[in-house]
């Protein structure tokens, strides 16, 4: 599948096209040299472009159709994945996947949203919009991990929890609320990686952990920029302004203390080189898992509480009467 380019990636698209055209020509030394030169240009152009992405451009990168998601990470970082299905109450949600696997020989539980690749699969995955049964499945699987003292690794990538009639009828709010509460006291290490879109409550419903990591070009927001623009400007075309105002980029969130660490991405974003992106996640994950795993239960839970308890303190002032 050719790499899709985003609206702001025009210079990259032009270079890719040129390279593509050259590869169609009969092979000569001159052609190869030219392709190589163009390849180098591509790297520099990407580098400069991605060094100064606007918040809205980061939103587009986070939503990139080729962006590696949970399934890609499972393939590259874990072995022997066995998916577990269903919430044992109502159904199996396809937008949220759970299962166990090994990470460098250590058994772990994996939880994460799946958006789907082609159109057919996107529909099957409901575009990554999980329903209540997805959140309940996630908690059931996480309890399994707690029981057998296995660490939990969560990949967050969802536009939002599914806003539909059946979601409300089956209590999506309750499902998310219970997950948030119970994950704060779940007695096993939890590492969260925001790998794409961190869409509000739909993300937070599986995103409580001892460490919250975020990939460089992922986003995490209380409301999608389009929704924010429609709400306050009454004009959804103000989405770029909204994206900037919401401070939803990884560096912003690191500054606010909402995430613990940024996981670097290859130049041009994870979608340009999924293998390199996975390697970068691998490095951080290995270290963080060892750090959190070395703590005693009590210390870990106390630290987890403190971490979320302190969020937003910097935004509060004490006014004397």
């Amino acid at each position, binding site marked *: 599948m050719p790499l899709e380019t985003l609206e702001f990636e025009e210079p990259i698209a032009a270079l890719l096209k040129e390279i593509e055209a050259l590869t169609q020509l009969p092979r000569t030394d001159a052609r190869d040299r030219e392709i190589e030169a163009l390849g180098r240009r591509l790297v520099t152009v990407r580098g400069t472009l991605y060094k100064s992405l606007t918040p809205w451009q980061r939103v587009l990168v986070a939503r990139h159709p080729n962006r590696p998601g949970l399934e890609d990470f499972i393939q590259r970082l874990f072995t022997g994945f066995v998916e577990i299905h269903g919430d044992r109450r109502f159904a199996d949600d396809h937008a949220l996947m759970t299962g166990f696997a090994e990470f460098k020989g250590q058994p772990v539980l994996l939880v994460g949203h799946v958006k789907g690749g082609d159109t057919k699969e996107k529909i099957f995955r409901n575009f990554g919009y999980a329903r209540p049964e997805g959140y309940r499945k996630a908690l059931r699987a996480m309890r399994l991990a707690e029981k057998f003292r296995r660490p939990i690794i969560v990949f967050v990538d969802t536009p939002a929890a599914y*806003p539909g009639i059946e979601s*409300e009828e089956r209590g999506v709010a309750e499902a998310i609320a219970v997950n948030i509460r119970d994950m704060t006291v779940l007695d096993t290490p939890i590492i969260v990686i925001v790998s794409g879109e961190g869409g*509000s409550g739909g993300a937070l419903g599986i995103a409580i952990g001892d460490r919250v990591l975020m990939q460089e070009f992922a986003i995490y927001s209380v409301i999608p920029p389009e929704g924010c623009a429609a709400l306050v400007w009454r004009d959804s075309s103000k989405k770029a302004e909204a994206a900037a105002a919401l401070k939803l980029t990884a560096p912003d969130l690191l500054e606010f203390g909402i995430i613990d660490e940024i996981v670097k991405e290859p130049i041009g974003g994870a979608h340009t080189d999924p293998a390199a992106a996975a390697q970068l996640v691998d490095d951080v994950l290995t270290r963080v898992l060892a750090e959190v795993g070395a703590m005693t239960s009590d210390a870990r839970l106390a630290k987890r509480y403190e971490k979320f308890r302190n969020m937003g303190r910097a935004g509060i002032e004490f006014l004397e009467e």
Partner: protein
Amino acid sequence: MAWFKKTRKPMAAPAKEKPSRVPEGLWVKCPGCAQAIYNKDLVTTLNVCPKCGHHFRLGAAERLRTLFDAAWTEYDKDLVSTDPLSFTDTKPYRARLKAGMEGTGLRDAVIVASGAIDGIETMVAAMEYEFIGGSMGVVVGEKIARAIERAIGARMPVVIVCCSGGARMMEGALSLMQMAKICAALARLDRERLPYIAVLTDPTTGGVTASFAMLGDLNIAEPKALIGFAGPRVIEQTIRQKLPDGFQRSEFLMEKGMLDLVVDRRELKATIASALRFMGAGALATQSEAVSP
């Protein structure tokens, strides 16, 4: 000019009235039954229409008055938001905060206080809708979390009266994290076997519903309150259909199994008190004294 060509002045649009707020004046028209109600009657009925039972929205201070037996002790009323994102849309967030403060006399969208409910010392947090839609930002999160921690320290039950549009957009992901902060405190309260009652009033939506509003040992709603996660407009856009009547109202949620009971405001205090007694509150403080060495 012929009379029929005369341009008519357009009729002035009627001033937009807020539907569920008790306006000034002697008489109020009830949005439920369209009858005129004498304002003073509303005071005795806790702002419930005596004819049709329509529940007018209550401010946070009025709410506390309806629940506590007598005076209460307020906590952390001096906390204010610093506008951590320096957020500006059509208006700076600071201006919205200022307007909220001037309009309500509060510094943010919640009052937390302890006092006696039918003789039972209880920690109550009441949200104020008139302060930026009752939205939950860092101050609301901090005040409620502190209230829960205080309740654990004093072995007191907690009641939170929700009245909120959800997380406060102008504080971005920080407001989202208040859901986690409050839920974490509630998990500790739960482990301490202390009672928590969530009271859901019109409206309770978004991040408030998806956190503490749904986590009560009992979830009690006032009649016909709008309660949901996604807003009705968002759902209509997703499914491209009109929503059925009564969707996301208290009675609908109870029917779907999400609420323990729907209670008329005039019965609310008595219901909370009897629930707290069932949960052993009142005896809690003395119990802990007996246990501690």
